[in-house]
């Protein structure tokens, strides 16, 4: 329990010094994406890893945040700092309203319902051409500004995005270790027993679904204002699945695991670029190997591996 503040401080320091180690505009840009994806993975993990409820439509909430912010600022000239919270609020309310009926469903049926939701949102992005620009996208979205600072370079965006990512991480770590986080895990383990203990499982699931959507929407807004351009292709079903993969590879029910998963899945394609046409094969193979040999995710698998290696070395030393 007492280790939580220490873990977070370590994580924050790591984030702060990373730009001193990893230099170059291109790499910074990738790390901005790692930050955005971490927010998304943490948000989905609250729902999937803690409450045990699947969503295959989270790219939709991410996209709604991006488009909301984009349209309000680019088309209607709003201040981005106003557009962002408003987008999050609207997406949160919408998710709550949708969540009430669909979170009654369990397992495969919930997966199907959220899949449908994601697809509907994607179609709306494509078809409401007057509003979103349709398949060709929406451009001219302004950067965020703070006083005289304009967040228009990769390094500035890095610190901007990661400030939010750290805040979301701290928020989620706190939640996970609290009365509500405990109730969520209880619902995950045995919904009927949790209800007998007085936990309103239905309401709790809807709340965490909405919270997860709000965080995803915030990530979307940040994405829109750092990229200054959005198009529907970034918010399709593929991305929902990629988010799910980040959460599972990183470790279900671990906030820092979500960071590991997001970092790995964002960096891996960049690292494999040298392999050219084989990159996708290696990528798939690595994912399969990780799921097989680290079923608890990276966050549990890596310490296990280190322990095994230490033991092996000890054994070799004795022999």
């Amino acid at each position: 329990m007492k280790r939580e503040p220490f873990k977070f401080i370590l994580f924050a320091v790591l984030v702060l010094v990373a730009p001193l180690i990893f230099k170059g505009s291109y790499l910074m840009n990738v790390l901005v994406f790692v930050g955005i994806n971490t927010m998304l993975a943490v948000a989905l993990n609250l729902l999937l890893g803690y409450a045990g409820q699947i969503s295959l439509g989270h790219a939709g909430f991410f996209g709604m945040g991006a488009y909301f912010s984009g349209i309000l600022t680019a088309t209607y000239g709003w201040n981005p700092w106003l557009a962002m919270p408003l987008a999050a609020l609207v997406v949160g309310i919408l998710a709550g309203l949708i969540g009430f009926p669909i979170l009654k469903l369990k397992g495969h049926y919930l997966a199907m319902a959220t899949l449908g939701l994601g697809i509907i949102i994607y179609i709306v992005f494509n078809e409401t051409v007057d509003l979103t620009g349709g398949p060709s996208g929406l451009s001219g979205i302004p950067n965020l500004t703070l006083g005289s600072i304009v967040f228009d370079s990769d390094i500035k965006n890095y610190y901007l995005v990661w400030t939010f990512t750290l805040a979301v991480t701290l928020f989620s770590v706190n939640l996970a270790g609290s009365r509500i986080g405990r109730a969520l895990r209880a619902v995950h383990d045995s919904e009927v027993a949790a209800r007998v203990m007085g936990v309103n499982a239905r309401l709790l699931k809807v709340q965490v679904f909405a919270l997860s959507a709000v965080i995803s929407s915030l990530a979307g807004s940040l994405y829109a204002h750092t990229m200054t351009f959005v198009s529907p292709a970034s918010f399709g079903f593929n991305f929902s699945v990629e988010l799910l993969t980040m959460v599972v590879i990183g470790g279900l029910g671990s906030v820092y695991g979500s960071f590991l998963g997001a970092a790995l899945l964002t960096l891996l394609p960049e690292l494999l670029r040298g392999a050219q046409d084989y990159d996708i094969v290696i990528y798939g193979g690595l994912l399969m190997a990780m799921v097989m040999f680290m079923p608890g995710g990276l966050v549990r698998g890596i310490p296990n591996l280190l322990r095994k290696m230490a033991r092996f070395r000890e054994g070799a030393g004795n022999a």
Partner: protein
Amino acid sequence: MLEVTGITRMFGGVTALKDVSFTIGQDSITGVIGPNGAGKTTLFNIITGIYSMTSGKVTLAGKDISGLPPECLARLGMVRTFQNIELFGTMSVLENVMVGLHTKGSSGLLACSLMMPWSIKEERRIRETAMKWLDFTGISELADDAAGSLSFGKGRLLEIARSLAVEPRIILMDEPAAGLNGQETLALAHLIGKIRGMGITVVLVEHDMELVMDVCDRIVVLNLGTKLAEGTPREIQENREVISAYLGDE
């Protein structure tokens, strides 16, 4: 304390329970017995809001609780345990009891995430109270163990500790002695007595006749979905209908 009136439950064309009525007095220990398939667990599931009933009425201390979901019943002071033990397996023993104290806390999603001072204080209080209940059931040395790794007997004790943390007025136990050895059953009988001593009404569905006859003040006998008899353990033991239901007619 608990009044059940005319409960009927049909599953498709099958009548699982037919017009079952009885009253359970304050601070009593009541056993519900009957051969397999008599409808005992169905009755429990209906009273505790897990199944709905086709018709009938349940009142708790004069308040109509028919059809209320379990999370509402917990707040009204009714809690239950399960035949196959429903623990939160991935959580620690202490955390399991802390979930039992869920209704004793009030910090919401935001207060918890922002670590408000009152929510931290509340969390500390919940942790201390949970420890007390582990002490009460004698498993406090297991506080940090994973609940999923407990033996059946210890798991049963944890389930009871967790239920008591809700501070119920009435506790319904579904076959609490199932899977326990002789010694554990004896300890359970003692614990049930202690729970009643705290002013909590106890109802049990049980197959272990020795335990039922030993601890219960009153017994309700179900057979084929209807109430066959009701009375003190002595009356039930001498009831000819009950004997023939269990042993068959000659």
